[in-house]
């Protein structure tokens, strides 16, 4: 498929945007990044590109919009087959496993971190943390099985599950500093601890995952804005 004109509507602080940027980097695709201020009035271009959900990220390729980050990554993989290695595994069973873990991360695990950020009661927070650690345990097992002793979920190379989970590393570090605990630590989840360090320094992810202190500043700003609008 020809290169074409590529734009990404997104926000620097959004891990869902970050993962699409990583996929574009893996395929060495040039694109125009259009920052959307998600917390103020939704821009007309966003509403036109994603009228159903009105969310970012949206990839626009040759004026055609593709929405939902997991779908966008699969689209990038299928539309640019000649650029670099595949993002998803080539074997259908391995692909099914990769999709399973991507859905688990997005629908079950990461929402727990968001929930933790909203709760104030100690007991509720403790209960959520227990679930987060259980989930991290499952992801550790998944890493061991999928990586088969290699560096990334996809083996020697960064692939689908790596970027689906890796995009959250900035927010994971924010959670760790606020909770005073490590989520991926060397004792409980040694595989993930090593993977996380390798991932953030990989070319695909470098300069994309925001620094935790910038995310904290952003988070405080959003909370303040919410409080002032009541």
């Amino acid at each position, binding site marked *: 498929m020809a290169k074409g004109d590529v734009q990404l509507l997104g926000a620097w602080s959004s891990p869902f945007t970050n993962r699409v940027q990583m996929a574009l980097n893996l395929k060495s695709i040039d694109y125009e990044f259009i920052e959307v201020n998600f917390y103020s009035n939704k821009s007309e271009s966003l509403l036109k590109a994603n009228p159903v959900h009105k969310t970012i990220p949206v990839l626009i390729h040759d004026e055609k919009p593709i929405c939902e980050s997991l*779908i966008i990554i*699969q*689209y990038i993989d*299928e*539309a640019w087959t000649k650029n670099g290695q595949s993002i998803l595994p080539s074997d259908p*069973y391995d692909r*099914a496993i990769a*999709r*399973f873990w991507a*859905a688990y991360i997005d629908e079950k695990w990461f929402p727990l971190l968001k929930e933790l950020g909203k709760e104030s009661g100690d007991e509720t927070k403790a209960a959520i943390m227990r679930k987060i650690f259980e989930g991290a345990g499952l992801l550790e097992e998944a890493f061991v099985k999928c990586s088969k002793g290699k560096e990334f979920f996809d083996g020697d190379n960064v692939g689908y599950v790596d970027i689906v989970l890796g995009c959250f590393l900035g927010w994971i570090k924010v959670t760790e500093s606020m909770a005073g605990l490590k989520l991926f630590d060397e004792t409980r989840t040694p595989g993930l601890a090593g993977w996380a360090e390798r991932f953030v320094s990989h070319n695909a992810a470098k300069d994309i995952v925001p620094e935790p202190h910038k995310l904290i500043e952003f988070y405080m700003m959003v909370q303040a804005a919410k409080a002032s609008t009541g």
Partner: protein
Amino acid sequence: MSEEWVLLDFRPSMFSYRVKIALAEKGISYECREEDLRNKSPLLLEMNPVHKKIPVLIHNGKPICESVNIIQYIDEVCKDKNGLQFLPSDPYEKAQARFWADFIDKKLHVASMKITWHKTKEELEEAEKEMIDCLKLLEQELGDKPYFGGERLGYLDIVLGGFCSWFCAIDLGLGNISIDAECSKLMEWTKRCMERESFSKSLEEPHKLHDFVVQMRERWGLTNKY
């Protein structure tokens, strides 16, 4: 090597229906094992330890979980009798099909669960409105085509297909609305699909699904009359 396919199933599940439709469309013979969800089998717990849910498809001893994953897996491993696949080959059209499948699971399914489990008349009316809003968007996507896949059945027809009995059950009186009146094109699509053997053999009969939901609600002390 001989192929072995086993489906861990629960009869009233819309997610199971769509997998059965996919298997039938591909002409795959499989063993169907019904699960008692109040007493899950050791096999289910072994094959889906993370979610412990059905459907699970086991292909030559290896489990695939989550219905949309299962359908894509079947599609990638087997061409149908005409050598065709459910998902279109064009990457953009594939992305659109996946987008609407995701919409069905995130929005339509949620509305259908709220209709099943509503506690008040207000909750029911709100859930029915949500469902109709979803169906109107899907009708726009269908347009004048016989199927979402175009002239022939495709991925989205199968993903939404799991709901066909449910749509008919709603119109038999599960809700206070008529999908036929509000979204007639979608009901035409439903009837067209239900004439296919893959659908008629896979789906529960609408009146049985209707009765199942009514009985389940009564067991949980929820009223069926307003």
